[in-house]
């Protein structure tokens, strides 16, 4: 027997209440900014190990496929490999020499000091947003490893993005190629400032858009673009990419163009998190001398006046 007046959770009621609740949450977070979210943290910590595992599975898929090759092939390969080993040993000794030469040349070019020595933590990319609209990814280091919001991420010698959310054991990173990303940057040679912003349309061609360059500025094709000294969240002097197709805008005041990033975003596996945070405008406070001294000087002034 079913109670006639028993309240039942029908699909419509669930849909309506949950939608209204979420709309409220979205509304509140627009006004107050993203509040700390305990649910996110719980889900993150619970699912994190599984994600790591599945990521590994995805990565080793190719290797596993190779392992399925029959034993005969493997044996044949073994013989070939032995030959190769001999050859490679020879090559190694040659490349060793070349390596030392390279080190020497690097010292000459001072490439080692390309960046001021920021301290970094290595992290592994363990998941990506389903990739089609946005370019967020997850790394396997979180608050427990000392990651904080707004830390910069680099890889392959260039800027990758910025930490936007920190969980207990993982963090979310916004890549600079995302449509919502903006980085204030400058040219390495002339220090002219500009803005690098991600654009889905341009990223189809593998580039980002480079905007707000003064018309008189001397940025030319092939110029190195670095993060700017005046950036609020990005540390200065990190290589972002190279300028391309610089043209004067229709407003005849600014120039804009494209930027080819140095980082290959399609094959990001490990990244470096810079643990130094930039002191931006948000932390900027006008220096106020202590009240006592102020009172004294005030008193002295009035005395002088008298």
């Amino acid at each position, binding site marked *: 027997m079913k109670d006639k007046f028993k309240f039942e*959770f*029908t*699909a*419509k009621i*669930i*849909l309506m209440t*949950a*939608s209204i*609740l*979420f*709309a409220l*949450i*979205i509304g509140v*977070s*627009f006004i107050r900014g*993203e509040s700390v*979210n305990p*649910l*996110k943290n719980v*889900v*993150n910590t619970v*699912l994190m190990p*599984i*994600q790591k595992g*599945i*990521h590994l*599975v*995805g*990565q080793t*898929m190719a290797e596993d496929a190779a392992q399925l090759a029959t034993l005969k092939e493997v044996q044949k390969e073994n013989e070939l490999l032995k030959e190769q080993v001999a050859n490679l040993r020879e090559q190694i000794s040659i490349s060793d020499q070349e390596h030392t030469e390279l080190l020497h040349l690097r010292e000459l070019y001072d490439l080692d000091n390309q960046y001021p020595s920021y301290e970094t933590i290595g992290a592994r990319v*363990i*998941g*990506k*947003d*389903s*990739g*089609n*609209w*946005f370019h*967020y990814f*997850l790394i396997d280091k979180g608050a427990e490893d000392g990651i904080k919001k707004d830390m910069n991420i680099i890889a392959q010698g260039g800027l990758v993005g910025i930490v936007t959310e920190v969980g207990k054991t993982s963090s*979310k990173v916004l890549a600079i190629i995302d*449509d*919502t990303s903006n980085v204030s940057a400058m040219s390495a040679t002339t220090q002219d400032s500009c803005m690098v912003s991600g654009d*889905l*349309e341009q990223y*189809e061609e593998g580039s980002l858009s480079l905007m707000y360059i003064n018309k008189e500025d001397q940025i030319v094709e092939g110029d190195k673009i670095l993060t700017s000294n005046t950036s609020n969240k990005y540390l200065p002097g990190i290589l972002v990419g190279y300028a391309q197709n610089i043209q004067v805008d229709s407003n005849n005041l600014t120039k804009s163009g494209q930027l080819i990033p140095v980082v290959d975003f*399609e094959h990001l596996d490990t990244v470096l998190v810079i643990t130094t945070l930039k002191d931006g405008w948000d932390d900027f406070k006008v220096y106020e001398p202590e009240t006592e001294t102020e009172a004294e000087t005030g008193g002295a002034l009035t005395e002088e006046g008298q």
Partner: protein
Amino acid sequence: MKRAILTLFVVLAGFFLQNNFFTMLNIVRIAPNVLLVITCIFGFLRGQKEGVLVGLLSGLLMDCFFGATLGFYSIIYMCLGYLNGCFHRFFYNDNIIIPVFICGVSDLLYGCYIFVFRFALRNRLNFKFYLSTIMIPELLYTIVIALLAFGILSAINHKIEEIEKRSAERFV
């Protein structure tokens, strides 16, 4: 109870497939929307209520990991689960065209939702570009996944229904 646990398992598996597996081996930078397929098919197989609940679960997962604000994905997934639930009465065991078709339509709706709220509102209005480079490839990919997923999920559904029937008979 069994059904609830199994559903949770399927959704989690779908989430991991989508964000940890397919994104690693994506073709032309596009990954299929597995969670959307699961939500739609559950809605179609089991009706509105289950569609909404599965949608809520998948939406929350997406929100927790990739959402800008909690609720953005949940709302669209729930609505799609509800919509697909409306087509429950057209469900026959061997009819595969309708579920795949509504999965495709749902994916387009999902794309439009993201376009409107995350792109058009920021004055990125080139709908044609987003349609041709993101929505259509994702649609095709999703349809392929939907074909596979419908077979698997309807088989699972069939099994559980049998088990439930048996245990119900035992009590009679």
